[in-house]
């Protein structure tokens, strides 16, 4: 029944709708540059969502754990075989994305008789110099984007834009010390999380934390206190995951998951009150 072009387009449209729904409950992921490298964070419900891919590449994911796991394994395989056969410096986020993830995810998305990947992925790549840091995101349909400075995963692109707007409004965030970067990241995460819960109704919950002023509502940034309160509320039931790519870290692997005690010290006081944050697998 899909041999007619119209049917096919309709089927892809249905698939988009189905997938969009799958992400509304997901937790956003934020990655941004800071003075010492790159910090990536999210709030997860048990299953970790942030991983090490290669010496200078970290992955953050949204979606079904089994799909993320499949894609993660493929990336690991590709990166390590390439790093062994050529050299570690030839393993780049851009190549993993363009020749690895994108074709696979796009094909799965368009083969309407098979299941698509319920996954959105963010790759953060630490450059030798800060200006070479690269952030890549890919959507469930295989569409990918390259950015400098930061990247975010959220249920919809509107959510991602909203999160980015918050980060861009923090002047000089890329030179900030770690604690400040963690706070910026958490606030951006809260922006995304609130935007998602109010999805379908863009002036919903998020607008309530926006600074007042009717006309300014669309332009003004949400208030930090309210955002951190949202983080604190969420973290009470879930766990905070935070990983770093440290430019001056020892050895060749620059990836490091923050331990719970380290993270505890870095958190803004407004969030620190809750004690239940947990850390990703310690390496």
């Amino acid at each position, binding site marked *: 029944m899909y041999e007619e072009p119209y049917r096919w387009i309709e089927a892809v449209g249905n698939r988009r709708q189905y997938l969009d729904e799958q992400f509304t409950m997901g937790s956003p992921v934020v990655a941004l540059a800071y003075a010492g490298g790159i910090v990536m964070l999210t709030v997860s419900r048990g299953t970790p969502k942030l991983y090490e891919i290669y010496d200078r590449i970290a992955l953050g994911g949204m979606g079904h754990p089994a799909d993320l796991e499949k894609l993660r394994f*493929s990336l690991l395989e590709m990166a390590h075989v390439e790093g*062994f056969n050529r050299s570690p410096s030839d393993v780049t986020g851009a190549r993993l994305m363009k020749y690895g993830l994108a074709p696979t995810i796009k094909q799965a998305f368009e083969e309407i008789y098979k299941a698509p990947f319920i996954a959105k992925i963010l790759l953060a790549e630490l450059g030798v110099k800060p200006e070479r840091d690269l952030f890549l995101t890919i959507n469930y349909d295989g569409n990918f984007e390259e950015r400098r400075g930061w990247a975010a995963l959220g249920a919809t692109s509107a959510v991602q834009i909203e999160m980015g707007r918050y980060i861009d409004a923090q002047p000089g965030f890329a030179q900030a010390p770690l604690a400040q970067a963690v706070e910026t990241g958490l606030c951006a995460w809260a922006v995304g999380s609130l935007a998602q819960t109010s999805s379908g109704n863009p002036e919903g919950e998020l607008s309530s934390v926006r600074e007042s002023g009717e006309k300014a509502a669309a332009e003004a940034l949400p208030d930090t206190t309210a955002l951190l309160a949202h983080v604190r509320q969420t973290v009470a039931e879930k766990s905070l995951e935070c990983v770093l790519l440290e430019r001056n870290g020892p050895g060749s692997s620059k990836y490091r998951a923050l331990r719970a005690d380290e993270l505890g010290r870095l958190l803004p006081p407004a969030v620190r009150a809750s004690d239940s944050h947990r850390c990703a697998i310690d390496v």
Partner: protein
Amino acid sequence: MGAMRPHEKLRIQNVGEDDMGMQGDFFQLLKSQGYQFGNPVAASAGMEIPNATTILALKYRDGVLVAGDRRATAGNMVMYDRTDKVLEIDRHSVLAIAGVPATAYEMVRVLEHSFKYYRRTQLQELSFEGKLRAVSKLLKENVPAALAGTGAVVPVFAGYDHEQEAAKIYFYDILGAEFEAVEYAVSGSGSPTIRGILHYVNTWGPQPLAALPEEQATVQALRLLSSAAEFDSATGGVNRELNLYPVVKLITAAGVQTIPDTNLKQLYERDVVRAL
């Protein structure tokens, strides 16, 4: 082979198929892509293959010290005087190599990627025993090449075992048999010379090696390598004119640490050179 090409599809693993058992095994992954390690190639008569030379590992007060000279030779010829034979595989383990450098470097590359791949896929460090097995396995794969005369490697592996909270030393024969060294291990053409000295110093010296603080252990290592260089032409020792010192690394719970040349120079001039 195996290299990433445009339009090459990512291979999606189907969990439940026969590759279930090899998850996290990088060496199997390489082999499944056609990689071969330790191919026997008979050495033709008169062919001189570069060799690497005196390495030693000893337990001192805080952990394990691993040291190696820097000379690579082929027959009578000195090929290179800046070889690094004490190679870090990860933050807590080191492989010191004696034998054919081509094979040894390849082994280290395989091991380095294997340990990282395991950690990143399985989300946990490979156990210390697992690391030891990986070294043995590679040496076993290498037996044909070792016997053919083109690829013999006799390494010393040292690392920190987090489970037992101790730094340990293992040495191997070319066939891959693994032996744990209680106090020290040596390998390479200069090793017979220093083996005797190690035994003497450890047994009748003012204190056993295991009681030496870091600085004294380093001085011992410099003296031992200088002795090896005295009697073995294939060992480099110290070349003060060129400011060439052996490679000395320390392994403790905190990880692997390299002693900088400036420190070695200072210790050498103070405690190794005999004042005239």
